[in-house]
């Protein structure tokens, strides 16, 4: 197997992102798998994108537009 490289975009590890770590993943062009060199996450682009949707669970008001900022 040749060395790992970058994919078409520079995906971060979704598992590390959930613990507030920005870690670029590296790409195996033969297997089309992205892998994290900090933790044990491995996944295809499809899986990375799906997990990235999941990490947004914490942003409960992400799509809400606020017009009031106090509780008066």
């Amino acid at each position, binding site marked *: 197997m040749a060395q790992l*490289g*970058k994919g078409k*975009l520079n*995906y971060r590890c979704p598992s590390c992102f959930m613990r507030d*770590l920005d870690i670029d993943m590296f790409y195996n062009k033969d297997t089309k798998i992205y892998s994290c060199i900090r933790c044990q996450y491995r996944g295809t682009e499809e899986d990375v994108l799906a997990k990235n949707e999941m990490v947004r669970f914490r942003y409960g*008001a992400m799509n809400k*537009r606020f017009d009031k*900022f*106090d*509780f008066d």
Partner: protein
Amino acid sequence: MDKFIVNIIHRPEMVPEYSATVTGQGKEEDIGDKALLTESLDIFRTQQRLAHENGLKVTIQMTYASLFNDEAVEIAKHDHEEFGDEIGLSLLGLPCEEFREKYKTKDFCIWMFSMEDKKAIVNDVFEKFHDRFGFYPESTSSYYMDADLINYIKATYPTVKCAVATCWEEGPKAYHTCNNSWYTLFDGGPWAPWIPSKQNTHAPAANEAEDSGIVAIPHLSRDLIACYDGNGSNFGTHPQNVLRGMIYDTKTWEYPYLYNLIDQYRDLYKYNNGYAYNMMFVGPGWMNKMGRWEQPYELLLKSYTDGCAYYGKLKKEGKLIDMTMSEFADYYRKKKGVTDEKRYTEPECALWRDILYGSDKQLFWYCDPYMRACVNMDQGGAIVDLRPYAAKLEWPVGIGTKHVQDASYPFLIQEKYRAGYFTHYAGEGTVRSAKLSYNGEEVDLCLCPTHAHFSQEGRTRILTLDPVEIEFHGLTVKLQTKEYFEEGSSNIKIERHILEMSDPTAEVTLDEYMVACYGTTEYPEDMTSVVLRCEGKDEKRIDYAYKCRTESLQGADAVSAVVPPIDTKVSLTASVEAEGYIEEGYAFSPMFKLGYKKKIADKEVFATWLNLEKAN
């Protein structure tokens, strides 16, 4: 009239942070890569265009590298003439062939150099700027500028009156997020513009003698809940921060959070005598043509386009005034009363609500020349962060000092780094709260979430919290907390009002306490120089030795701690006679505790003050 000011700042970085590592992954380092230079200039040109198309003035912070680039210099001159942009000089963006050749180092953060190198670099960069433009700049910038650096710049180049001088809560959290490889450690500063003291950049000047001569602005306007809790680089008025945090809809590429963030900053005029502020400062690396992390270039471009368009729209509607940095410095000094009254004590206040996570959590941030404090309404109005600016701690940073990288202003209380109310198994975390006890039951106000309302009486800012109900077996107590921040007093007064008791004849014990330590990081420091006292006729004293000792004194005038490593004395005082106590910690709980206990009945009020002083 209420005013919302924005500073839009661009820097033509020739070798942008990140671009080299992203674009150049798998290639040998080439700091003079022509493709990178061309791309960087293209991005700078695009940023300028987007601001101008939306009728916004820009402050161009020329980098050292860009001063060697004729095209970058010409763009700056043109846009100064055409759009009224200010041409300033950044101390970011030092890396280039010329810099490497001259200084023989890959260091690039100005505050980390030795003082000798800081002076040499400042002279070099400012003189190069003068060669190219024929004048000296009125504004400068970095992620952090230490007091010695600011003092040197002001003394040598007195034209400078504004600087980007810190990035709010960019400290251990940012370091952690970057896999412990991003050494920007400068927590504990103001989130909004201030006049730095000559002694410590974070701590605002208290008077003319302490005035460093510049107005400092923070690098970006940050979310005052999200950035305190998590990675600051995901939650700021840098549109690509919001993308970095993945706070957008991947199908529609919409990010209402960015506009909520700007709008909440606009709303802060209510707490600051009609003034509110924002800044946007985006380096070109964030609009890399290769995309940035998950985001393709098109989304990066869209976010910056939308950011400029929103500020432009507010301007067209008369809701925003765009200024250059030097214009803002003049405006700020006048607005805050410094120019005419020589008044330096007006605080910055922010009553901030969660606009991201869907909770109703609310914090109050307060900053003046004597302290920065955070009050957490989700914990009954507990103080969960406290920086004793009263000490005006002299803390040189950079090579050759004790703090090569660590530029944070030390805390006495930091709920994230040294626990807050909740600890595992044993010990206590740092927090200023109160406990009520009745017939063997005890309830901490940290477990009584509520909301606060802001008011101002003269020069005192008041937080009035919604009453909370505390249920004991056989007794319900309705309690209201009021917190007073009197300008220039260097203290915080907290009143507890017993509004109602289900048994009007009952008495409860109120324990007003503060658990504290000191430090700048998550790790404990040596506490052995700390001295605790119950002050009064029969003074009680504990010299800290991790022995878990306690002393108390009925009618204590004050309970205090002197913390020599940060030149700070902190004390509590009470409105009426009460039992003061001090507690030493132990190795597994390296804290100290100060408090007052008092029995309190229906309709009574008990007040305590938290006071901060310079210890020596």
